[in-house]
């Protein structure tokens, strides 16, 4: 990986990641699904060294499960997202760890601010949660476009009981 390559790709990678964040905040979930490759994985591990096929994870979505997750959110009645969460995905500390013209590894700091309103005095509503995480992406590049091969979200709070996480980080 040459530093020249990083320089020319850095802006494109950052814009890609900011756009992913905005699609999620705007709940444009079909478009978010389209950012992944066919074997793309969305993973929220307990430990990034785990084997997701053998060790428990907080979430491990292949393409089909990711599709089913979005189906549920769009067609409902998904009571745990009624009312839905409002989110702000803050993506920062973007570092390109390595790669070449066809793929690269990117590390980011992600903080998702989540608000769930509705009738806020009721139990289970009216809360604000903060979800800080170290994210690692494997991005694939084809035809001037980036796609996500793997999105790994290492939650700071992973050893604690995890609140309602039926929206997408």
């Amino acid at each position: 990986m040459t530093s020249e390559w990083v320089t020319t790709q850095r802006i494109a990678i950052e814009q890609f990641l900011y756009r992913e964040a905005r699609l999620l905040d705007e709940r444009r979930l079909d478009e978010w699904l389209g950012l992944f490759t066919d074997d793309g994985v969305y993973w929220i591990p307990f430990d990034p060294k785990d084997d997701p096929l053998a060790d428990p994870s907080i979430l491990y979505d292949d393409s089909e499960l990711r599709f089913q997750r979005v189906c549920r959110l769009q067609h409902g009645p998904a009571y745990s997202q009624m009312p839905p969460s409002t989110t702000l995905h803050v993506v920062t500390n973007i570092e390109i760890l390595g790669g070449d013209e066809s793929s690269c590894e990117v590390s980011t700091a992600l903080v998702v601010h989540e608000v769930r309103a509705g009738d806020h005095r009721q139990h289970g509503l009216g809360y604000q949660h903060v979800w800080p995480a170290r994210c690692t992406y494997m991005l694939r590049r084809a035809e001037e476009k980036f796609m996500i091969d793997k999105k790994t979200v290492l939650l700071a709070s992973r050893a604690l009981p995890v609140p309602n996480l039926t929206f997408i980080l």
Partner: protein
Amino acid sequence: MIDEATALQGLAMDQWSGHVREEEAGFFVAASAYTDSALYAREMEQIFETLWVYVGHESEVRHPGEYVTAWMGRQPIIVARTKDGELAGLVNACRHRGTVLCRDGSGSTNAFRCPYHGWTYALDGRLIGITDRKQYPDGLAQQLGGLLRVPHLESYRGLVFAALGSSVPSLDAYLGPIRAHIDLWADGSPGGEYVLRRPHRFRYPGNWKYQVENTVDGYHPRFVHESGFKALSQRLVGESDDEHAPRDLSTEFATEHGLTRGFSGGHSTLERPPGPDEPVVGLARFAPEVFERYSGQLIDRHGAERANNLRVNRHVFIFPNVFLMDVNVRVVHPLAPDLTEVNSYFAEASGVDAEVNSERLLDLQKRLGSTGLVGPDDMEVFARNQTALAAGRPEWLVFSRGIEAEIVDPLGEAVGTYSSETPQRAFWRRWSEIVEAEGREG
């Protein structure tokens, strides 16, 4: 003229009685049973801090020196494997000034040392070191002995139970007829044992008894889980591989199929057999060749008839708060009248193909836990219950479903339809016996 002591006793009885009504008109439970703080404290004292509760699994403390921390109601304890290979239940509090000794969920050690003044205890709780002992009267260590021991600790099929009460029935007597159902769960591992893995943990803002009722409720899935079932039967465009087609749980749960059991000890089951030709064990569906081998192993070990019974989608409830489910052990922890923590441990089977455990694990995770497509919707219902009942209206909640069709045998085992409220009635009867009893049991 009644003296004050008698009058107070009468008041105490009124406070603790009358939350469960079983009469001609049906079976009813008072809203206050889910909200009242004094009642909650009594549950902690009389149930969790007296009678048998689940505190861990043998697979979590295999080797001498290993320990896990656990809770019996509000009481923190340590379950440790001693040097002799025995299990010890220790009250997690230094005998000096009451400091908690252990703040890891699990670990391995030669001894427990208090961070406050350095007092040290062996794995079996014996006090083996008092820092600068000379300044204490002679014989203090002998007088204290060591950490307070949990008076009763026993395991059955790898499940470790403990009781703080001074005189409780044996674990065997406590479990009674639910033992046969624990066996059906435990026998599902062809290698003869399960290893419990790191749990999925979540909380909800509601009373612990909602989760207990819900896990053996066959009536709710088609309603609460409508979105999850629909989504899980969707395929990606282009997928036409019938061998790997997901189950259509919406259709399955719309039909009345299977049964419930309720026992006089408060235990219960929810049971749903799979279709004979389905490559299914519990709720997980396997690729045909993987299923062939897996079910073959069960048949070899247990014979065809029992192997078939092992394939049933079965939830076994052991009063007051632990469930043995298809692929996991679920423990319900009360934290406050309106706050509960649930820990769900994937039970890794032994002696099976890696694909079997992989499918079981992924099936569990996609449905249950904080990110599941099924479980989180139950939490919303529990929160809604807690909101609605805060001021005690409606006063009485209805648990009369399936009473007429229920068959009760001479030993007190009730069998109902899959969606019958048989398990809930068994729970509340036992709850009433303990919480509303005169005087303390044990």
